[in-house]
């Protein structure tokens, strides 16, 4: 196992990098102007968080890589983001359901990280938590509004939930990295956050008149990097293209 702290920081930074990229794909094409602004704002926050996490990852690694080197010069197998965040945007409902599920986990996890024994980590968590709480409020309102909207919006939100639910389990599946960090008091044990997640998500889904899928089957392989989806490679091809095509340039 490589250094658990480096792995953990890449997981945090890659989640926000990949989701920030996905959200930024909406630029200029949201259903209403206010959503264009909110989506750009969410993406902007996530990219800011990425810079903090990945710069720290580079520092911890000690091989001279900064956030840009990690974001733009690693290949798919080195990415440690959750499966959920690399899922394509789909329609606006799917994008917001993905955001809601991720934010619900992210807020709980960041809350735990504010108590981290590592001051660098608690500082980033503190800053991110403010932004993420706002993202979650907004995603919650949207999930409720569209779930409890028209017949069509309800059906679309239920379809989004059904489609994305198999990616929820991975957020709470601990592995050796998580165990090592929990032992050191660096990060919370993700498995312990599940009941809080279920409770909070359950309330929102009830208000949104949406039904939680029966099966808790969970895809795995995102955060360990062992088996990402086909989508991630295409995203990186676009995101990393300039840095790869002109390796001698600075921008």
């Amino acid at each position, binding site marked *: 196992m490589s250094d658990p702290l480096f792995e953990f920081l890449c997981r945090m930074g890659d989640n926000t990098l990949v989701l920030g990229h996905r959200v930024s794909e909406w630029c200029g*094409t949201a259903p209403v102007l*206010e959503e264009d602004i909110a989506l750009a704002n969410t993406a902007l926050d996530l990219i800011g968080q990425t810079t903090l996490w990945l710069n720290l990852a580079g520092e911890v690694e000690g091989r001279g890589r900064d956030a840009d080197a990690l974001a733009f010069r690693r290949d798919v197998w080195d990415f440690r983001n959750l499966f959920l965040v690399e899922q394509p945007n789909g329609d606006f409902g799917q994008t917001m359901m993905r955001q809601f599920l991720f934010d619900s986990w992210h807020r709980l996890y960041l809350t735990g990280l504010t108590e981290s024994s590592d001051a660098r980590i608690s500082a980033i968590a503190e800053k991110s938590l403010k932004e993420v709480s706002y993202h979650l409020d907004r995603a919650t309102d949207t999930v409720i509004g569209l779930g409890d909207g028209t017949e069509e919006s309800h059906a679309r939100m239920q379809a989004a939930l059904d489609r994305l639910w198999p990616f929820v389990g991975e957020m709470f599946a601990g592995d050796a990295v998580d165990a090592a960090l929990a032992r050191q008091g660096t990060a919370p044990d993700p498995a312990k956050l599940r009941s809080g997640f279920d409770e909070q998500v359950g309330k929102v889904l009830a208000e949104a008149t949406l039904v939680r899928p029966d099966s808790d089957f969970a895809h795995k392989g995102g955060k360990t990097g062992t088996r990402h989806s086909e989508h991630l490679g295409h995203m990186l091809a676009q995101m990393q293209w300039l840095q790869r095509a002109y390796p001698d340039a600075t921008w």
Partner: protein
Amino acid sequence: MYAQMIKSTGKTVKSLDEMDPQERAFQERIDAGGKIEPRDWMPEGYRKTLIRQIGQHAHSEIVGQLPEGNWITRAPTLERKAILLAKVQDEAGHGLYLYCAAETLGVSRDDLTRDLLSGKMKYSSIFNYPTLTWADMGAVGWLVDGAAIMNQVPLQRTSYGPYARAMVRICKEESFHQRQGFDIMMKMASGTEAQRKMAQDALNRFWYPSLMMFGPSDENSVHSAQNMAWKIKMNTNDELRQKFVDQTVPQAEYLGLTVPDAHLKWNEERGHYDFSEPDWEEFFDVLNGNGPCSKERLEARNKAWDDGAWVRDGLMAHAEKKKARKLAAE
């Protein structure tokens, strides 16, 4: 300039003596540098012209997100990506203030949107040009936002209060946009051979379309004379274009880039640069929907609107249900 070819009443400008007392009082207030507010009386022509101008400006902000959105997912560093996202977010925000300013004149945002989507209302010709390399993000900030600022700074003193106030806020953000554009150009122009090539190519492609942003000469235009009398328009197109060229040429020299105009020359006597006019036939083609990206831009806006219909309907239905439930509980 995000508003081009704004038609006014088409009649000669009336002298104060020809006006009835109400109109005369209105004009005298403008002449004295006063502001017109939404509840004040105003000539129908003034109201309609402002709706056209503010609406076109708002549409330009909205459509203007697309050529930059084209590069957000390919921005070469996290910082560049963040700056570009912030800029595009500002533009959507500008669109929002401007639609609000237009709404004070008795038109709804939905009406204006419909007219944009049907092609009835225009947006700035510049956004019908493609952004082909990363240097175009620099050129758009430096030249396009630079040209927009030329027009918008004087509009902070425009006679219509809500428009003038929107413009104050917009100008602050636009000057940040221009600086970040120039910063990209500096990096590119002092970079590798490939980057310098991208920078020069971006200047070559965006120079004349930027000059077109000010619109053709309107020195003899009745519309322009009326709009200037109303202080909806503060300078002629030629004045602003000249000012833009005078400001931009030394910046291009500083960057070590060549402005693509063989006739560009400092004129000692005039104290200005002499320069070539853009191809006005191309300008009218673009304005008539035949720009290189005109179809894509309008299709993208229409698709966003159509795809978003279920979202708008859903949120509206939820708001109604919530209201009904609240009423029932009371």
